[in-house]
Structure formats: C-alpha cells, structure tokens
C-alpha cells in the first residue's frame, strides 16, 4: 500500500529529533560524526523522541538541487577533516590532490588600467627595472616568503562539490540521516524564545525537532532570521564580505602546471582583489578572485574582473587554449569572529560559516566549518547519551565549551582584528594582517569607526574620469539597460574581452556552459526590492553591478527605478543582499541555482 497522497493544506507538521538546514561542510561534518557515533554500542539504547521505537530521526534540508551544487573549491590544511577521516585518500575523491607547490604572487598591472595607489605603481616600476634581479617573469613577482599563517603546504586541494558528494554518500548509507536536496528552509519556528524546528519553503510544512542545527551559510534565511530575532552579541557585526567567483578549467595540452600547484595572488585585476589558481588532478585547474566589500567602488563587479584576471600574462600563458568546464560564485562572510552570532540557544545551535567560523587571517573556512560540525555532533551525542535536553545551558556547556577550547577559537582570536587595516586602505590592510599574523594577534591595526562603504561615482573616479564622462556613461547604461561597470571600465582603459567561445565567453554563456543555472517553476521570486523609492534614489545600482549571474539588471521599462530580477539566472550567491547600500533587498530561500558539481 502506498503512503497517503499529496498533503492537504495546511500540511500537518513533521516530527524529527534533529533538523539541519543546509548541507555544506559544517553540516557534512556534523552528520558524519553524528551518524558514526549513533552506531556505537553505547548509543544503542538511545531512541527517537519523535517516533517511538526508532533511532533518533535526523533530517537535513538543502536548498540546492543536489548536495554537491552551489558550493566552492578550496585549498585547505584539512586538519579537522583529517582528524575525522584519518585514512582519507584524496585519490578516492575526484579533483582532490595534496598541495605540492605553493606560491604567493604579486601581479603587476600589464595594462595600466587598474586603480593602483602610488606606492603600488612605484612597486611595479621597481619590479620591472630590477626584473632580472628580483626574478620577475610574465609580469609577476613570486614573493620569496609566504607568511606561515597563509601556508596551506600540508593540505589538500578540493572540489567541495565532489567532497560533499562523497561525504553525503557515507552519511546516507548509514541509514541514520536523511539529506533532502531541493528543499529550501524558509524560516525557523520560534516559540517562547525557543527554536522548535523549521518551516519549509516548498509547501509551508513545519518540521518540528528538539534540536535545529543551523548551517545554512552566510546568507541563509534561517541564520539571518535568528540574528534578527535574538540579536547579535554585544560588539559583534556582520559588515565584511566578499564575492568569490571562479572558473574550473580544462587545461590545454601545452600547460606545464603540475597537480597540487597553489598560487595566491595580489595586485591584479585591482589592488583590492585577491586571486587564486589551484591545479587539480586530470589537467584541471580552478582560477578565481575575491571582490571584497571594502573595495569602495560603487560599481564593483566580478565576472569582467575574473576574465581580466585569467588573462594576466602570468596565468594566461598556462590557461590560453583551455576550456571552461564549470563556473560559479558565492558570498563569503569575512567578519570572522566579530561576526559570530549567539552560537546556541534553547533548541538550536549554529555551525559553519554562518556561525562566524571563517578565519579571516588565514583565509580558511572549510576546515573550520567542518570542525564546528564535528564539535556539535560530539556534544549532541553526549546529551543524547545522558538523556539531557537541548537547552541553551546544556548546549553552551557542551558545544560552546568545546568550541571555546578548540584550535578554532584560539586562531580566530588571533585573526579577529587582522583585517582592521583594510577599513583604512590597502597598505594599512596588508600591514595589519602582517602585524596580527606575526604577533599572534597581540598587535593589530586599530579599527576605524563605521563601515567602509562604496564611494560616490564622482569621488571614486576622481582624477580618472570627469563628471561629464560619468554622466554620459550613466545615461547610456540606462538607455541600453545594461550595467554601468562595463562602460566605466572601458573608459578607464580596460580592453574589451575578446571572446574565444571556449574559456573567454560572455557572462550569459558562463551561466549556460559553466554554472548550468536552473530555477524550478513553482517558486516565487526570491529577490525582492522592498521600497521602489529607495531604488529610484540610488545613484548607482550596486546590486546590478555585483550580481554574479546578471539576474538583477536595469529594468528596460523603468531604467531609473527598481531593477528587474530574473530568477532563472540567479546563482543564489547572495551578493545583492550585502551590497545594497540601503538594505533594500529581501533575499528569501529558494531552490535552484548552480548545477555544477565541481565548483
């Protein structure tokens, strides 16, 4: 006999013991540790409180259409991952490799188009004048020393999509947890200041559980609503972000880069934009950039900069002739420990990037996220074994205490003030990172009061473009319903990208060929502009410029009004959310987005 047919409205609540939101590295670590623990003899007597006679019922709801979609590629020291998986063999996971060679490259500006400060222009001149002595090749200087805090030399290169796929199989084969893809979670259920579960976006079903594990990433709907309801701890704020955008590339036959190569880059395509290149097994590489919120351009963007980045002579000599295999983008919460929310409360616990675990000094987030998941799982197993409830007090005594005693806490305190300098400028930023990193966080650049925000157009382009040029570009962008950054970059001397149809392709082709972006039909728009008037008053629509998928675009009907949103192009990176200067964007939970499993 089949189960009952489709649920009536309103649907009856579902009961579980533990419900998780999002299947990223944190929840993957949580579920792997939990399901392994539940199989130990001492846990045999633990029964579900939701369904009598069964083991604890553990469910996880993932927004994306597959557990391997919508996540990123990384280089990581993988300390926590290896502690969980001591026999981990990277050859068992596609695109995984041990780091073999690591370089920190200063990229000179080969075009003269970047907005370099004077000291950096001078540095370029010195590098060129002394290229033979310094070893400058192909417009790049390999720095002779990599600060120890940046080293990933004993770690792995991963495709997080492939890694998640691998872990997800282990978790589900245990039979002790269900991971539901294409199931976005709309909101937490908050009752009497206690989280009693979640509400699913698909049909409004409530899933009631004794413990809600919130690991839905930096822009997840549940985490943000918890922050709004319970507030952030005193002095904590989420005001530093970045968009990470990358391509996975089939390398040309001529490429001599070896598997396990890791390059970190600074200096190009803009001084504020850091880049990377990782070489995976099978002649595949990941190349990408980070566009930070402290880059004060009012028209900051990612895709065009990424195209210029891969064409830098130092990279292009290896990548030319390659083929775009995959493409994607995500937001990164870069507030670190300052962005840490209340880690636990009655009925809920926060793990992963949404819990402020990313180390902003070492630029490492995946391993830290994994660790938070494993620490919570150990705590949950302890509480289940003792039959104790998931109260704030119990979770603080177990999970939060474990976290405070871990290397994650120690290192995140070192990193806590490491990026203060970037609020003042690029040079103070680098100096501040060095100071914090080399003194174990004892000395740090002072933090500037207030957040560094995008400048006005005329101020940002002062000395490079006249007001009249800017106004003409604005008028043309409105008339042609296109983003403004392209026109302004052209005016600043950035050459047009010559598409080759393979690796250099239009943004729309990147969505089709690389991101394979999808959107199911039955959901409403998940990006909403709250006040049309605020959009009309906005000088430059930064949401249009930064949108990773060109899903937010100038409205053809009302060019000066609220932008148009095309959900079929949205990659769910959430960049619009934190780039809107007046917080006028509602970013709701929805399925779809990237369909690439290699990012």
């Amino acid at each position, binding site marked *: 006999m*089949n189960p009952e047919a489709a649920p009536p409205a309103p649907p009856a609540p579902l009961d579980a013991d533990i419900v998780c939101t999002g299947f990223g590295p944190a929840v993957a670590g949580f579920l792997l540790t939990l399901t392994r623990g539940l199989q130990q003899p001492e846990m045999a007597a633990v029964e579900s409180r939701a369904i009598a006679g069964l083991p604890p019922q553990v469910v996880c709801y993932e927004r994306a259409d597959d557990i391997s979609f919508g996540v990123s590629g990384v280089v990581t020291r993988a300390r926590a991952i290896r502690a969980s998986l001591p026999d981990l063999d990277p050859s068992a996971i596609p695109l995984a490799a041990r780091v073999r060679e690591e370089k920190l490259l200063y990229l000179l500006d080969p075009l003269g188009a970047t907005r370099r400060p004077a000291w950096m222009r001078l540095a370029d001149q010195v590098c060129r004048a002394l290229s033979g002595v310094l070893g400058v090749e192909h417009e790049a200087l390999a720095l002779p020393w990599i600060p120890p805090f940046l080293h990933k030399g004993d770690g792995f290169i991963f495709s997080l999509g492939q890694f998640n796929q691998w872990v997800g199989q282990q978790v589900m084969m245990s039979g002790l947890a*269900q991971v539901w893809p294409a199931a976005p979670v709309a909101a937490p259920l908050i009752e009497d200041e206690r989280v009693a579960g979640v509400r699913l976006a698909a049909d409004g079903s409530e899933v009631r559980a004794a413990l809600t594990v919130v690991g839905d990433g930096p822009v997840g709907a549940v985490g943000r609503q918890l922050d709004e309801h319970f507030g952030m701890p005193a002095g904590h704020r989420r005001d530093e972000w970045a968009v990470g955008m990358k391509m996975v590339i089939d390398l040309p036959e001529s490429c001599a880069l070896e598997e396990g190569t890791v390059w970190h880059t600074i200096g190009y395509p803009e001084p504020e934009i850091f880049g990377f290149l990782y070489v995976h097994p099978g002649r595949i590489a990941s190349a990408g950039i980070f566009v930070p919120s402290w880059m004060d351009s009012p028209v900051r963007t990612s895709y065009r900069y990424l195209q210029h980045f891969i064409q830098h002579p130092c990279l292009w000599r290896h990548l030319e002739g390659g083929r775009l295999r995959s493409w994607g983008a995500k937001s990164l919460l870069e507030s670190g420990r300052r962005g840490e929310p209340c880690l636990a409360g009655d009925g809920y616990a926060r793990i992963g990037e949404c819990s402020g675990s990313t180390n902003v000094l070492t630029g490492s987030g995946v391993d830290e996220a994994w660790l938070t998941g494993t620490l919570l799982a150990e705590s949950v197993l302890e509480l289940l074994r003792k039959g104790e409830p998931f109260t704030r007090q119990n979770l603080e005594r177990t999970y939060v205490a474990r976290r405070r005693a871990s290397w994650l806490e120690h290192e995140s305190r070192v990193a806590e003030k490491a990026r203060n300098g970037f609020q003042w400028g690029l040079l103070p930023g680098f100096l501040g990172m060095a100071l914090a990193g080399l003194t174990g966080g004892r000395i740090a650049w002072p933090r500037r009061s207030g957040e560094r925000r995008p400048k006005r157009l005329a101020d940002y382009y002062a000395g490079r473009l006249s007001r009249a040029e800017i106004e003409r570009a604005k008028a043309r962008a409105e008339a042609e319903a296109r983003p403004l950054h392209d026109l302004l970059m052209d005016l600043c001397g950035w050459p047009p990208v010559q598409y080759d149809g393979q690796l250099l392709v239009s943004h729309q082709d990147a969505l089709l060929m690389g991101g394979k972006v999808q959107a199911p039909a039955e959901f409403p728009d998940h990006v909403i502009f709250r006040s049309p008037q605020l959009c009309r008053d906005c000088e430059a629509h930064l949401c249009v410029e930064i949108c990773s998928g060109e899903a937010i675009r100038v409205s053809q009907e009302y060019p000066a009004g609220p932008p148009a949103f095309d959900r079929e192009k949205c990659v769910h990176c959430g960049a619009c959310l934190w780039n809107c200067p007046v917080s006028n964007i509602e970013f709701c939970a929805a399925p779809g987005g990237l369909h690439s499993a290699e990012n």
Partner: protein
Amino acid sequence: MPFQIIVCGGLAPDPLQTLEPVFDPARPSLRNELMLPAVFDPWAAHALYEAGHLAKQHPGSTVRVVSLAPKAKLQQVMMTVAQKLPFELTALDGPGGGFVDAAATAAALAGAIAALPDLDYSRLLLFGGWESATRGAGVVMQRVAERLGIREQFLAVDELSVEADGSLLIKERIEGGLHQISRCASPPAMLAWATGSLPEPPNHPQTGMANMRVIMPALQKAAAANIEPAAEYASTALPSAIRHTRIVKDVPAAEIAREIAGWIRE
C-alpha cells in the same frame, strides 16, 4: 478500477554535468561516475509522473518503482524523486549507465517484478521510458514485458485514458510524426512512455518523508543484481562538437535568424 502500476526506471548522470567516457572493452564507464550527480532517468520520470496521476484518479491504485542502479546513488536520487509523489520501491543494486546490456537489464527487472508477492496481472500496468537517457536502446521495456508474458505492448506513449468500461485508450507516437490511438480491453499492459503530457510535479516534503519510511527499508534490502558484461566495446567518445559560439555585434535579429535557418538547412 484500482491499478497496480509498476514503473521501471534507472538513473542517468545529471545531463548538465561534464561527462568524460573512460574506455574499458568489457565495461566502459564515465569518469568519476559515482560522484556525478544523477537524476532519475528523464524518460522513466515521465512514466512515473503519469503513474502518479493515474493512481490519484483511481483510488486504491498503487505505484511501485523497480530500479536497477548503484544502491548508494539510487538512495541519493530517491531523496529528490520521493518528494514528487507517493510510491514504493524495489531496488536492485547493480551497475547503471549506458554500457549495461539491455537484455541483462531486462532479465533482472523482470525477475524482480515476477518475485513481487502481491503481483496481480488483472490490474497490472507496466510502465517505463521508451528508451533510457543513458543509451537509447529502446528495447528494455519490451523485453521485460515478454519475460512477464505481457502481450499488450505500447511504445512511445504520450497519453493514456481509462474508459468507463475499464478499457484503456492509448495514444502512441508512430513513424512520420503521427499519433496512433489504440484501445486495450484491460490490463495487463506495458506502456513505454515518450514525454507524456504532465509537467514535473512540485516537491512535497511531506510526501518525501512518508515515502522514505518504505523506501529506506527497500534500499537496505536491495539485492545485488548479477549483470555480466555481454558485449565488447570498440571505443567510446562524446559527440565531437556540442557548441559553436560566434560573437557578432550590431547584427539585426532578422539577419541572425536567417543565418541560423541557413545553418539548419545545411
């Protein structure tokens, strides 16, 4: 009349992924096949949606999916498919993909169906895709039907309706872009579906949770299917050209359309 609907369906790699054949004369495969996101075979999915629709119209009907696929992968795919409509599962743990012999696949599926304890030929409708997205051999469903002794077989079905007297009106695609409508007096019958006419049902998490209570035990009981390589392959390759991009500027849409039409005519 309540029907007993059995849907045969395997898995296919998510068609949006990068596929790379790895050659082995006995059993070619795709690189990293087990790590590739998979979907329920799209043709079989049409059959499943039609089965769900039919079962809803005829109370008391049951839907059972019989699937031959790697167990771990099948479990993952079921987490999505199970949210669509209520069904039960019989799982066979074995190789999937386009390099598995059609006759061996049919034998395994027919064996599993024949072994079902409650099989009732007087109510049985055997559904599946008219071909698989991984190979397109287009013979598995006929072979399953033959093995089960089901003589009423319909291929490339687009529509099924049940008449007041219980007979089945079945619209099939036939050569020349035509449709043929047949009347089948009663089950048992095999219908190998083309696209049908139903959209993909939206996800219902509640349905998924309810389904999983029967699907998880079925997956844990999945018997290993003994599928021996029956053919030797000479080579494998992807289509040589799948995308041509030419960037043009300031060309009117009509001219672009003319060029595309000319290219298609060639």
